[in-house]
């Protein structure tokens, strides 16, 4: 890896952050159940606020400034409350980052790998969809499994993400 790329990644890592997560919850049918999901997510140390939309059975999660966001823990909180994750999307801030399929970047000691993503330059807040077990319905996961081949560094957790065509 050339020095240029290294510097680029370093500067990206310093500025990139997950500003918000939107999580769709399957199996929810009552406001008491929705509240249980909210209470589990609120227990996470990096979570500042949770807003559940009972009508659409989804929640928006906001984070404490500077805290390390662990997306898998948000998904696990939904399971702990007794429900399943339908989809998980995160708003991430980018600053002129050229991405394409299998592009990797590290942030807060976790690796994020773009899959099935056309080449493009990301700037500003971009919604990325998390791909993998625990982040989507089973039938959806099956469609993605052929593309989930990690090319990222071995350190930290590996997350697969994609950008849905708008």
């Amino acid at each position, binding site marked *: 890896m050339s020095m240029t790329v290294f510097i680029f990644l370093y500067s990206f890592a310093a500025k990139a952050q997950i500003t918000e997560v939107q999580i769709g919850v*399957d199996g929810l*049918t009552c*406001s008491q159940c*929705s*509240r249980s999901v909210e209470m589990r997510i609120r*227990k996470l140390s990096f979570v500042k606020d949770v807003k559940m939309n009972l*009508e659409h059975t989804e929640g928006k999660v906001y984070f404490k400034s500077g805290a390390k966001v662990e997306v898998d823990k948000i998904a696990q909180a939904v*399971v702990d409350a*007794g429900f399943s994750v339908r989809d998980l999307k995160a708003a991430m801030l980018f600053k002129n980052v050229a991405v394409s399929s299998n592009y990797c970047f590290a942030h807060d000691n976790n690796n994020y790998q773009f899959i099935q993503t056309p080449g493009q330059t990301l700037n500003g807040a971009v919604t990325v969809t998390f791909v993998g077990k625990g982040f989507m319905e089973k039938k959806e996961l099956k469609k993605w499994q052929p593309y989930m081949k990690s090319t990222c560094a071995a350190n930290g957790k590996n997350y697969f993400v994609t950008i849905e065509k708008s």
Partner: protein
Amino acid sequence: MRLPITILFVLLSSTMHGQELFPLNEPASNVPKGALGVRAFGESYKEVSLYRNLFGIKLMYGVTPKLSIYLSASVSNHHNSELPEGLATHTHSGNQTIYSTGNITRGVRYPYQFNGDDAYIKYRFVTVDGQNRHFRMAAYGEFSNVNVAHDENEPTLLDDTKGYGGGIISTYLVKHFAASLTTGFIIPMAYKGYLPDPYGGADVPTKLVYGQAFVYNLSLGYLLLPHHYKNYNQTNWNIYVELMGKSYGEAKMYQGADMASVPIQTPLLKAGNYVEIYPGVQCILKSNLRLDMSVGFPMVGTSYVHFYPVYMFGIQRYFYAQ
């Protein structure tokens, strides 16, 4: 009887979500991991000229997302401190004594006493979740540590009989409709006590072996209000219809120093089966404080352990560890 069914059909045309927080039956879903649920409940019916009441408390805890444990205890004025005098009787034929079970007087006032406690464990092994829908299955097992002078055959854990229970719960929920089927069994343990001797002699050692039972309960539920969820402060109104069925074998009774078998003759100790219907209404305040009330009537056959109508009450909430 027709009214609850009519209400259900009216609601079929609505666009509301189903509810599975059944007042009487457990759904296949669990207590959220780490949450503690507390439920106080009561049951009341009029027997001849007095009310028989049962009050209970239940603690519920989510050990894992799929495994919940419940501990309950109850008090009631359902039983005397020993078996009633008339439970066994005898006639003389020549110099032969013929023993048999006798009829029990109804409406006798008994003191309130602690029935015992009950441990229940539930494991969810099937989870098929979709948006606003799910199908789930769970297995449950329970042990009831109750030792009261229950003088009828029908086994009821936590209230009347010591013993084991277990079964399978299947809960299906799709936007307009929530349904849950519980099929299980009860293996009661015998009550060993004494019957007063009608002629003033020493109390007679008596063992009553209750019949084993199958249970089959069906619960249906609907959310009446609110039409659209906006926030947690909206009061939720749910209506339910629950069918409670039980089928049990004949009791066995043994008496005296030699524990001789006493032929069963009274209907209270014979095999039986019945299905009851419990229309119910529930209100949930601030998405946590749950108040239930339902009223039971006989539908097929009749239960001998209570009179009708049976009024059931419950109040419940969850506490989330911080």
